[in-house]
């Protein structure tokens, strides 16, 4: 009985890992295809976070001994990736990197005029 | 036959030496010294490596790598960064006095 549960968990884990790898592949394609810094940064954080989370959960499901450790790693990725991305994007905006010409929303502009 | 690890670390040492000799910017020279530091550390650790051995933590049996270079390098890295900070603060002091970081202008060498 337990053996069947382990096999099912392993299959689910491999499915998670394949989903994660797919998102990582999309992220790396987007890194080449996207037009400007901000869009590239979005693919490099959002898609990569999702991909890394799925890979970590998949590893935890395949070997249950690793589940707590991989969950802690996942929490830290969720905590740190957006912080770094927002700091980098803000720094590049303040440094004068232009937006892509098709961009519609520019909320930082109003804030910058207030400064 | 010389080993690739030794070649890599000696290359790092040579690059650091090249920066120290050829560049005339104080911060660049300090960066060169840091590269040399890293090269020496890598050389020490690679001398202490043993094939098919594990780290010298005796939870697991088996042959261990040489722990002495690791103990030396562990302290050398921390000393390295603090000495680099000291050198950089001296460079900042020189910049405040003379307004430049180029060695030729500080020493008054004509080109």
């Amino acid at each position, binding site marked *: 009985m337990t053996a069947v549960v382990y096999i099912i968990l392993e299959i689910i884990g491999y499915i998670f890992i394949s989903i994660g790898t797919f998102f990582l592949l999309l992220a790396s394609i987007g890194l080449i295809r996207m037009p400007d810094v901000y869009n590239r940064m979005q693919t490099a954080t959002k898609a990569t976070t999702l991909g890394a989370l799925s890979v970590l959960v998949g590893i935890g499901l395949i070997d249950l001994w690793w589940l707590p450790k991989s969950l802690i790693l996942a929490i830290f990725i969720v905590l740190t990736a957006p912080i770094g991305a927002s700091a980098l994007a803000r720094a590049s905006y303040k440094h004068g990197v232009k937006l892509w010409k098709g961009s519609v929303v520019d909320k930082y502009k109003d804030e910058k005029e207030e400064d | 036959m010389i080993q690739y690890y030794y*070649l890599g670390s000696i290359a790092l040492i040579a690059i650091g030496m090249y920066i120290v000799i050829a560049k005339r910017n104080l*911060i660049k020279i300090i*960066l060169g010294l840091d590269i040399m530091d890293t090269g020496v*550390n890598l050389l020490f*650790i690679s001398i*202490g490596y043993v094939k098919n051995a594990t780290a010298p933590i005796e939870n697991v049996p088996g042959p261990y790598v040489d722990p002495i270079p690791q103990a030396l390098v562990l302290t050398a890295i*921390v000393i390295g*960064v603090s000495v*680099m900070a000291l050198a950089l603060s001296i460079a900042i002091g020189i910049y405040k006095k003379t307004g430049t970081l180029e060695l030729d202008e500080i020493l008054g060498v004509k080109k």
Partner: protein
Amino acid sequence: MDLFTIVSIILIIITVITAIIAAEMKDLLSAAIALGIMSLIVSILFYMLQAPDVAITEAAIGAALSMAVVIFAIRSTERWEK
């Protein structure tokens, strides 16, 4: 040629290339960032040489503290090498 050899040779080549980039950059900030990348890859090499203590130290110091100290120094002097 086992896996250890191949991976180490690739990492060593990347290390030497980043060191050359740090040597030849006129922008001191880029040179400092190249130095940080070099430290990070050297810490991976330390881990492969079975020295986890040294790898932790190098990753914490070389990639974070040493780069921060260099960047603070560049901020209070000038950025470009003549």
